[in-house]
């Protein structure tokens, strides 16, 4: 009962904060002329838009309303007509960005895992490649985005590659560290039970590195999304990043804000999914945190 009251209390406070921010955002700038010190002109709706405009813009970008403000759903065929005519509508843009994020994430995680495992296991190979890896890793990955777009064109491929390059090093480093720090006791225990080298890799080194891999998945999904958005900034036909650039060119803050809100929602949903997956895969660790010894 107290548990429930505790949660309700938290929820109430969270709502107060959200509503407070939205209210300030919506109406506070109207007071700018009266008290310029309290509300600087940084809050000008020209730069940051306001919730009502953002919501209107959302309805337009998602084809629920026409650009003139009429409800498309009320007119037969208007909604589908808008979707086909307006080719970077919010639905399609979201789909394209999500799809490319997904592929960037999957390719980045799998190649980073394999690379980390191979280099982590083979001491010699790891030593030979160490300087190159350090050098490449010190490049801010985002700086490569224009080159990637130049090389792979403005289609989906360049976004997947940008996303991949953001994810792969992160995962690689985690798994590399994991494969190098496998508890010697586990390896000895396996060997003394008669495990062959391959059996040790399969039953000790891989599962023990998995913990490190799973730990890197939450940042990896954020990085994958960042890679795609930056790729879309540089050059793209579709996607949320493209939507932001288009709105910026038109000086439409509301359009950019719609994209940002959608990205926030995508980020929250993907993180929550990864978190659930992680909690399941690392269930043997979760128990440790709950008590154990």
């Amino acid at each position, binding site marked *: 009962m107290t548990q429930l009251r505790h949660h309700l209390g938290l929820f109430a406070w969270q709502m107060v904060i959200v509503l407070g921010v939205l209210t300030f955002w919506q109406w506070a700038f109207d007071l700018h002329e009266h008290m310029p010190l309290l509300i600087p002109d940084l809050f000008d709706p020209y730069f940051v838009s306001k919730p009502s405009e953002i919501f209107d813009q959302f309805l337009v970008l998602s084809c629920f309303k026409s650009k003139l403000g009429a409800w498309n759903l009320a007119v037969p065929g208007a909604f589908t007509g808008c979707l086909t005519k307006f080719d970077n509508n919010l639905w399609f843009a979201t789909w394209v960005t999500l799809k490319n994020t997904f592929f960037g994430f999957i390719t980045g995680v799998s190649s980073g895992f394999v690379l980390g495992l191979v280099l982590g296991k083979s001491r010699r190979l790891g030593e030979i490649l160490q300087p190159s890896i350090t050098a490449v890793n010190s490049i801010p990955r985002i700086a490569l985005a224009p080159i990637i777009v130049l090389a792979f064109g403005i289609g989906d491929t360049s976004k997947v590659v940008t996303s991949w390059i953001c994810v792969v090093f992160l995962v690689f480093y985690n798994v590399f560290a994991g494969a190098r720090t496998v508890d010697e006791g586990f390896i000895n225990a396996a060997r*003394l039970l008669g495990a062959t080298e391959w059996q040790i890799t399969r039953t000790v080194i891989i599962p023990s590195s998995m913990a490190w891999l799973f730990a890197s998945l939450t940042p990896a999904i954020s990085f994958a999304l960042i890679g795609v958005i930056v790729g879309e900034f540089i050059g793209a036909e579709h996607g949320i990043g493209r939507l932001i650039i288009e709105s910026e060119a038109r000086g439409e803050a509301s359009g950019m804000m719609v994209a940002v809100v959608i990205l926030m929602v995508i980020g929250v949903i993907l993180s929550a999914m990864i978190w659930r997956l992680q909690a399941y895969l690392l269930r043997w660790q979760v128990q440790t945190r709950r008590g154990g010894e």
Partner: protein
Amino acid sequence: MIRIEVQHLSRLFPFQGATIQAVSDVSFAIEKGEFVALLGPSGCGKSTVLNMIATLLRPSSGEIYIDGARSRPDKVHADVGYVFQRDTLFPWRTVADNVGYGLELQGIKGSEKADRVATCLAKAGLEDFGGAYPSALSGGMRQRAALMRTLVVEPQILLMDEPFGALDTHTKIDMHEVLLNIWDREQQTVLFVTHDLAEALTLADRIILLSARPGRVKESFEVGFPRPRDAVALRETPQYAELFSRVWHSLGQEFLKGRTQ
């Protein structure tokens, strides 16, 4: 029949630019089915001797024979089982999967695996914990599970490196009872490393006492207490007290020597 024989075993370790002799010219033999405790003060090299027999370490000089055959430093003998001081259970496997690990390596699957795992869990009183992860168990339960992971493949030789060293006194005695029960039935050849004299007296047929570093065989004591033994009642007998003080005297000298080093 002699199962384990070590001859003139020595081991040097590099340490901060110098060389330290951990083990010096250790020789002994263990009969089939004998339970031998290797006793000595901390740092005397008793675990080093055990690890050389287990092929975890290479001897600097000397030879090891198992069943009369010279042991190869790179190959684990199929009959040897090893129990670590730390439990080394795989945290990502449930207790049952940990215990079944050795069978899995041998390609034993299905109902045979399940039966052998269940038997082992029952022997260790862990029937209800097969599905739990090691992190959910107490120290004593984990060490019992680790013992069973070693025993499930039915090794004829058991090498044990202070397996109960991290447990409190009462849990330790529980573990002694579990081990004595199993040993009374299966009569493995055991080499049990410990610094705890009471433990050595409770379990072993014979105690080999190592000197302070560098470890040498100082003395050997026959522990003639009748079996099956009661780990609790044994400690109240006058024979136990008599032997305890005799070995303690010798062990104490080494302990003091080790302290001044």
